[in-house]
């Protein structure tokens, strides 16, 4: 069972502002029934460019309904200019947080808001103009890049949690990984979290990674009958192969992220991203 905050449960059981505003000034439709969640947001805007009313209709899980409900509460009385600045993180925070696998619900809320504002102002949504990367969930590269930038995402798994991209057939994983590399490389150092004093040559970095794997990671995995091999280091991307009991293990993803990546970030460079070789 998901661990939902009280706020999420409250907004799920007794959602606020359910429905559709008749003669709405802006309508935002996002998601689809195939994707498993969808949201229709309607807003009323007065002559002072203030949102006076907001209503929603949502098909989706508890966090999708709660995200929609809390969003409409936040919007009422908000200036349009401020509403434009709302991010998915603001929605998640208003709910006291969401399980990481459910972050895409807050992203859906934000996208519906953008769509509704675009409808009101008569502009075209920039995000929809991107190139579709994930066919399964219809996610564009621009949406992925923005999610990476705004939420400092560091892996394909996190991209999936936030945008759903890569959560279907998985064919786009390579492309997502590529977008991630390009986007992370473009980010200023303080966002990437690179510590200046740790600047080292590629060779030094690879050597250090090897050393930590041999000295610490391998012995720990071996205790559980597993093993690990370093396949490649490309920039900050470290590709490894999990062997023995780790191979095909259901928790190998957790091992990879919560243990291997954490160790390497602690001891080598905290912007390293560890991926499994497939």
């Amino acid at each position, binding site marked *: 069972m998901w661990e939902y905050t009280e706020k999420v449960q409250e907004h799920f059981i007794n959602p606020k502002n359910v429905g559709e505003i008749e003669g709405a000034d802006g309508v935002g*439709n996002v998601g689809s*029934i195939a994707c*498993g969640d969808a949201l229709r947001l309607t807003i009323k805007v007065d002559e002072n460019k203030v949102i006076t009313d907001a209503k929603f209709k*949502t*098909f989706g*899980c508890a966090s999708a309904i709660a995200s929609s409900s809390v969003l409409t509460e936040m919007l009422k009385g908000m200036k349009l200019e401020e509403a434009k600045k709302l991010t998915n993180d603001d929605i998640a925070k208003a709910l006291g947080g969401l399980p990481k696998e459910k972050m895409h619900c807050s992203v859906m809320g934000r996208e519906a808001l953008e769509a509704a504002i675009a409808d009101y102002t008569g502009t075209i949504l920039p995000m929809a103009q991107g190139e579709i990367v994930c066919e399964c969930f219809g996610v564009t590269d621009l949406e992925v890049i923005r999610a990476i930038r705004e939420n400092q995402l560091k892996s394909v798994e996190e991209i999936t949690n936030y945008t759903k991209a890569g959560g279907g057939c998985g064919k786009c994983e390579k492309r997502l990984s590529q977008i991630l590399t390009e986007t992370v490389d473009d980010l200023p150092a303080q966002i990437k979290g690179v510590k200046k004093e740790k600047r080292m040559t590629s060779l030094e970095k690879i050597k250090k990674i090897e050393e930590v794997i041999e000295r610490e990671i391998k012995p720990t995995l071996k205790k559980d009958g597993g093993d690990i091999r370093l396949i490649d280091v490309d920039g900050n991307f470290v590709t490894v192969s999990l062997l023995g009991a780790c191979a095909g293990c259901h928790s190998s993803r957790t091992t990879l992220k919560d243990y291997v990546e954490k160790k390497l970030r602690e001891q080598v460079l905290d912007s390293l991203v560890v991926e499994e070789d497939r």
Partner: protein
Amino acid sequence: MTDTTSKVIYMDNNATTRIAPEVLEAMMPYLTDLYGNPSSMHSFGGRVAPAIHAARQAIADLIGAEPEEIVFTSSGTESDSTAILSALQTYPEKNHVVTTRVEHPAVKNLCDNLDIFTGRKYHITRLHVNGDGTLDLQKYQDSLTDETAIVSAMWANNETGVIFPVEEMAQMANDRGILFHTDAVQAVGKIPIDLSSSAINFLSISGHKLHAPKGVGVLYIRKGTPFVPFLNGGHQEHGRRGGTENVASIVGLGKACQLAAAAMTEENTRVRALRDKLETGLLTTIPKALLNGHKELRLPNTANISFEYVEGEAILLHMNQHNICASSGSACTSGSLEPSHVLRAMGVPFTAAHGSIRYSLSIYNSEEEIDYVLATMPDIIAKLRAMSPFWEENS
């Protein structure tokens, strides 16, 4: 009417079951005073051996097997892995496995990753199912080749309860010299099973699905079936599965099998009637509700129903507010982003797959509980549909 608000109404018995009070009682001595190791050379340890012997007999009796054909394991999953990997080692020259698209993850994920586990390349045929979840036997027969080492097909589906004709399938496989395994964790204890004249080579049982504790399972290995152990170690289970016996749980499983044999008629009459009442009630009182799975070829306890245009996790959490426990095949309940592979294999449309709820009953359910659920569900669905953007245009 009893206070249903504080009592849990448990309709998730395909996920796990309560331990029967009689089972717990039978286990207690082996969790307290009789803690000996049956392999020991002293009579204190030796005192537990007859209990294991009796449990083995009780399990064999329930499924029409011989006690020597029963091997205790830790779970249904271990039994599945043991059977399939054993067959592959028995026939190293064969490189083909036949299974279905609707198997439990214990079989599905193993078959998906056989290359990793065995270090060899396997060709896997995953049989499609019909819209009602049944198999096309002709297509099954056509899929068998000289290269096929093993077929693994479940006896009854955990999500829909749909039953496969595994006895017939096993015969077809055996006729071509192919081993046959069935994951029967949902079938054993719910429908009569008689392996005495069957061609099934391997059959998996899980204790906690039939009111025994979690952490104990059985692999039935038909006499004469070539076998390579999965867990090597001591001489337990005649060298077929190492590891000191989980004595108390084995005793519990034996007791549970006795109880299941005694309740078999009740399961297929009273429980079936409760299920039918629940199902008919939901399908008639709630518009756009659909049954998933074949109406007849099905376990007596399972009803899988889709409520169109609403999402399963949201339904479950509202049910939870009323202390009703069930499951869903929706994407959101699994943590994955796609709905149940079983419903997708059946071609259930997305409008319905996301809103599927599985009610799985047991002999501990009462008619009063069914009435309560029938009285509660329409409001839940109506409330969620009122906020679904797809409802108005499709109702």
